[in-house]
């Protein structure tokens, strides 16, 4: 080795040693958030939208000087929506990245795996997009909080929608199609539970369970047409909704029954992918809408996202954005991102104004289930060119009160984890 090279290496080593304590010092004044989102494959769009919106929130907060002198630091690793991979990443975040919060995930499978890690390491996990009700009932643990609505809330709103519809346009029969995994089955069970709870009379004439990401629905479509339901409830999401609707069009399915998809069926990517082909009059919803509520805060969120990403957001984005703001608000109150137990208290019952809140309502976290309580709106597809490339958006909204659609205590009694059981009223 030449002496010059040796000096160079020595200098480098010295610089590293000197940098080390500085790094540790700097870390004392940050709030570090370790996120897991899929960046690839079909759920990749949700992951990319979530990360863009989370970064947007981080930039907003840091531009105002951070939180009590702490800067927010957001890191993300591609989880491919796989539970085992997400667990690996979360453990690395906790053991070597010293994160204060774990964050994210589109897939409920990954969310359920991560909540175990969160409980084991007593590290707060903020769920932003996965919808399985189990996370805030059967599998609730003290360090989990969710800032987007779950399938129970969507399905309770859905049941109220169907109840009202029965009075205006009488219907009697339902068929269901949903992906053959927990998410698909949960939605159907929760819808039936809520229909029964609200005293709606109905008859089920067909239940269909295609595989997730099945490319071809032709056989399902013809079988559903034969059942002739008044309402087709769909638990499909993302590309599956797009494929089903496109394939069902020439069969005239949408003229013969109401297509009803109140949880994930009304996500913006459906409108942007199908354009003019999307029939009007489908009843859909999602976890956030680009054109509802018509408030300054929602418009600002949607336009800021458009400026940053060059496209309008799918609903995953607003969940991630909300999650970052919830963390900032909790740390603002507690003053220390490492005081986990105090932070848990701060999240429980937190009131937080979010883009998806209509005038006169503020979202809050239910201290019992750690689930965010929000207003739900279900809309119909109508012509609307304000959010290109979509030429249809949802409109003719029906709005459901936040408290009406939360799981009642009787439901929670049958679906409670140890942690939740202790808190339920006797």
């Amino acid at each position: 080795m030449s002496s010059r090279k040796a000096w160079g290496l020595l200098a480098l080593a010295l610089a590293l040693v000197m940098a080390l304590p500085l790094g540790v010092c700097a870390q004392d004044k940050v709030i570090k958030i370790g996120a897991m989102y899929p960046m690839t494959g079909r759920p990749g769009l949700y992951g990319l939208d979530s990360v863009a919106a989370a970064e947007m929130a981080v930039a907003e907060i840091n531009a105002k000087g951070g939180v009590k002198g702490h800067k927010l630091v957001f890191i993300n690793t591609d989880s491919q929506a796989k539970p085992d991979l997400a667990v690996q990443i979360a453990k690395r975040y906790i053991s070597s990245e010293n994160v204060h919060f774990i964050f994210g995930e589109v897939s409920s499978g990954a969310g359920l795996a991560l909540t175990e890690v969160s409980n084991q390491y007593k590290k707060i996990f903020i769920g932003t997009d996965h919808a399985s009700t189990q996370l805030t009932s059967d599998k609730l643990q003290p360090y989990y909080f969710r800032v987007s609505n779950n399938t129970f809330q969507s399905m309770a709103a859905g049941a109220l929608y169907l109840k009202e519809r029965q009075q205006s346009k009488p219907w009697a029969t339902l068929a269901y199609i949903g992906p053959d995994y927990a998410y698909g089955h949960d939605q159907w069970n929760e819808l039936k539970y809520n229909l029964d709870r609200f005293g709606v009379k109905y008859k089920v004439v067909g239940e269909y369970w295609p595989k997730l990401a099945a490319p071809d629905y032709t056989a399902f479509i013809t079988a559903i047409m034969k059942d002739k339901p008044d309402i087709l409830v769909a638990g499909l999401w993302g590309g599956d909704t797009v494929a089903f609707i496109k394939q069902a069009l020439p069969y005239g399915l949408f003229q013969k029954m109401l297509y009803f998809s109140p949880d994930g069926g009304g996500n913006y990517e459906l409108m942007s992918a199908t354009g003019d082909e999307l029939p009007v009059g489908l009843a859909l919803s999602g976890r956030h809408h680009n054109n509802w509520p018509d408030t300054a805060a929602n418009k600002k969120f949607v336009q800021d996202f458009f400026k940053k990403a060059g496209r309008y957001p799918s609903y995953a984005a607003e969940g991630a954005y909300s999650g970052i703001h919830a963390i900032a608000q909790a740390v603002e109150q507690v003053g220390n991102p490492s005081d986990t137990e105090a932070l848990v208290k701060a999240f429980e019952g937190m009131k937080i104004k979010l883009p998806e809140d209509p005038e006169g309502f503020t979202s809050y976290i239910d201290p019992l289930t750690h689930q965010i309580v929000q207003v739900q709106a279900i809309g119909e597809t109508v012509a609307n060119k304000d959010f290109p490339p979509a030429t249809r958006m949802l409109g003719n909204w029906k709005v459901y009160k936040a408290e009406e659609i939360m799981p009642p205590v009787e439901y929670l009694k049958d679906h409670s984890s140890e942690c939740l059981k202790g808190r339920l009223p006797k």
Partner: protein
Amino acid sequence: MDLSSLLVQFVSGLSTATLLFLVASGLTLIFGVGGVFNFAHGSFYMLGAYLAYTFVATVKLNFWVGALAAALGAGILGMLAEALILRRIYGRAEEGGFQILLTYSLILIIDDLVKLTWGTEYKSLSRPPGLGGALVMGDLVLPSYNLAIIGVGLLVVVLAWLVLTRTRAGRIARATALDRETLGVLGINVPLTMTVIFGIATALGGLTGALAAPLRSVTPGAGIEVIIDALIVVVLGGMGNFWGAWLAALLLGEVNAVAVAVAPEWASLFSYLVMVVTLIFKPEGLFAPRQVRKV
């Protein structure tokens, strides 16, 4: 179930089967002739769908011209992949394992390239003009575009039969499947033959993707969604058996269509059951030729 709904389900099955066969045809062709198991075949299907989107929605070509251009594009990319990457591992000991790893890595690479080129937003094409509707006869609804796809499937089968049995190129291809070394001694450019066959196989994949684009959502990862079913078809038909793949696709399409109508809660089980039973009792595939290819 009455006769008319059975007929409706049968036609549904036929349309499902045709797309299944078209994906599987390229996969089984390259396996039969070249002995290559191309796990990334679905990615060429996806590339076909994206290329068709560009040619039809952006460049505004006629749909059918755009679909052919997309097939050509997928074929050229396939030939590049074969000539630059896959060719290097031919003849290695344990080649099969290397093939799977190498073509699996191709899936990931192509997925990311697609994401960089087209973004992650879902893309979708409309059906070609004039084929958006359906033929309606009482309860029987036959979407015109699905009928067109069934027609294309038949055309591919007939064309492939003519080329493989009636032309010199077809004879070379069949000979490549049997004995590459002797073929080389006879003065045939075997590496070029392999590249061209790989190109034809990936072009078939690309064509299928283009045809499926108006029916499905075009997203990154779409390749993975079709590869498993295509693989089942290839195995059922007898690995490398072109006609077997056609029959197996028909069988699976129909089993699925009837199962969905009769026992919807178990529908997805049936196609796997058919495969399991086949693998146990006729492991060479339902439609394997009597002479099994010697290694």
